[in-house]
């Protein structure tokens, strides 16, 4: 149990009953949603919390003195506390910056912390399995500051090749890696990398977009310095993401976006930024979305993140075994075949069939998967692939979903051969 305080119970079947969208019928078949890696589905608790907020409490935050303005402000700040609790942030909600999504979190990290702490020649160490969100902002920063961007290679077993880590860490000021690959499902040894980074005086940022929704997260235990993740991949709404960092680091970061809400004073000659996380949240923030994220956090806490992780693992073991047994190599899974340190993401390579065609045939069966490069082109190049068709699980997924996936994959092979 995550907190040791909350009584949790988990039944994927019950979670499924809580998700209105899973009642949809697509092409005459019940929807088989296997695209949670791209965006998860929302339980009624999240949808209702947002509706209730708009129906009863909405006002702009941190401004008015009237009652609903206070309620909205309180709800927004409560969400910060809930998110802090969820990732065990030692400094509480004061260290949680709400962004739009993981991508914006990395842009904030690069353009605020990176632009002021990194100089020409400093190295940012990424991995070959990063999402473009954790690559492009660093290349952008390279153009203005002359930093070096370096990559930890991915080995043939789809895991990070850390044999030359000591060499790779030379001159590194920041390690920025994903906790779980959105293409391979590989879970990386974040705590080990944090230790190695700190040993050379570097900080470590972690992309938690895939890991936070699917298992317990403890930023203190991992001993990391930054964590970025998105609300909509963890049963919450779109439009809200998170950047967590330790207070000591946060206080050294200048604002990235300027405007209302992020200042303590503005005159005709200049401005003074607000203290704390407020200075990173210019303009009216995603209030209803933060309320929805709070509801998602409570819902996940109710399930227990250990249970969510175990459920994910069971589905993955089952799917990997059955894909191998059913298709005799004609459907390959691009990712680790052992399920230790591996999440519920199955990137499929179907013999002789382009992933777009796979996804098209699967849609006919009501099966939702994601074809494409998954915003990880360096990784795709590494394995000589233009694209894969990716199936990914959520806490509402059942082995029944895998049944339909296998049936649809068999049909795909028959159409094209």
């Amino acid at each position: 149990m995550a907190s040791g305080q909350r009584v949790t119970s988990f039944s994927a079947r019950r979670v499924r009953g809580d998700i209105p969208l899973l009642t949809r019928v697509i092409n005459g078949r019940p929807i088989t949603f296997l695209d949670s890696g791209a965006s998860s589905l929302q339980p009624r608790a999240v949808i209702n919390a947002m509706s209730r907020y708009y129906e009863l409490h909405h006002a702009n935050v941190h401004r008015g003195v009237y009652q609903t303005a206070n309620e909205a402000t309180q709800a927004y700040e409560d969400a910060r506390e809930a998110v802090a609790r969820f990732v065990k942030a030692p400094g509480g909600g004061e260290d949680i910056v709400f962004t739009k999504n993981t991508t914006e979190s990395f842009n904030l990290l690069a353009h605020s912390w990176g632009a002021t702490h990194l100089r020409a020649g400093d190295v940012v160490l990424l991995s070959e399995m990063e999402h473009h969100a954790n690559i492009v902002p660093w290349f952008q920063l390279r153009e203005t500051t002359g930093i070096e961007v370096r990559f930890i290679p991915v080995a043939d077993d789809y895991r990070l090749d850390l044999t030359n880590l000591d060499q790779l860490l030379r001159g590194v000021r920041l390690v920025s890696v994903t906790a779980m690959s959105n293409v391979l499902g590989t879970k990386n040894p974040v705590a080990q990398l944090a230790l190695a980074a700190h040993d050379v005086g570097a900080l470590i940022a972690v992309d938690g977009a895939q890991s936070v929704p699917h298992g317990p997260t403890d930023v203190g235990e991992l001993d990391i310095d930054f964590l970025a993740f998105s609300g909509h991949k963890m049963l919450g709404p779109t439009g809200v993401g998170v950047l967590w960092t330790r207070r000591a680091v946060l206080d050294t970061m200048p604002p990235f976006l300027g405007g209302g809400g992020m200042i303590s004073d503005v005159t005709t000659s200049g401005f003074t930024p607000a203290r704390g996380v407020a200075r990173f949240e210019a303009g009216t923030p995603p209030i209803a979305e933060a309320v929805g994220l709070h509801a998602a956090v409570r819902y996940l806490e109710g399930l227990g993140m250990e249970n969510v992780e175990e459920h994910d693992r069971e589905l993955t073991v089952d799917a990997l075994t059955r894909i191998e047994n059913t298709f005799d190599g004609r459907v390959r899974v691009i990712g680790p075949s052992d399920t230790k340190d591996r999440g519920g993401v199955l990137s499929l390579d179907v013999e002789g069939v382009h992933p777009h065609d796979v996804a098209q045939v699967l849609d006919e069966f009501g099966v939702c998967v994601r074809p494409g490069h998954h915003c990880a082109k360096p990784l795709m190049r590494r394995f000589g692939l233009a694209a894969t068709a990716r199936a990914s699980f959520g806490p509402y997924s059942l082995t029944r979903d895998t049944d339909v996936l296998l049936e649809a994959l068999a049909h795909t092979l028959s159409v094209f051969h």
Partner: protein
Amino acid sequence: MSNLDDLYREIILDHYRSPRNRGELPTPPAHKVEGFNPLCGDDVVLYLDVRDGVLVDIKLSGHGCSISQSSSSLMSAAVKGKPLDDVNATIDTFKQLMSVHSAALESSEAESDVDLRRLGELAALRGVVKFPVRIKCATLAWNTLRQGLEELAAS
């Protein structure tokens, strides 16, 4: 599976499995033009040999889904050896077919405006319009061909 059968007609699968006119032509005299779909990573490379207003030869290479690859193969078969006026008219007709609203397609009224005879085997691709996200797959080679012809005209 009637929608799927409409999309993956046998002639499309045939061109996907055995693409026509695959290869390269020496440049010059041929003109090389590349088309790219950044969303799905599909690409097409065309080699165009135009002499005296006639597309004497065309070769193609590239990677992609069955729709983009069969469309480029069918296209090459349809335009090879044709005067440029005919080639341009075929491009227009094909793009017109791809812009027919799928609801109108059912009634076949709008389709009657499209000169299907000019399209011949290419008409097999008309099921694509029922799948709006795949239209860009079908038109990739055609947009690339038009771009190549425009580059040639400008040079």
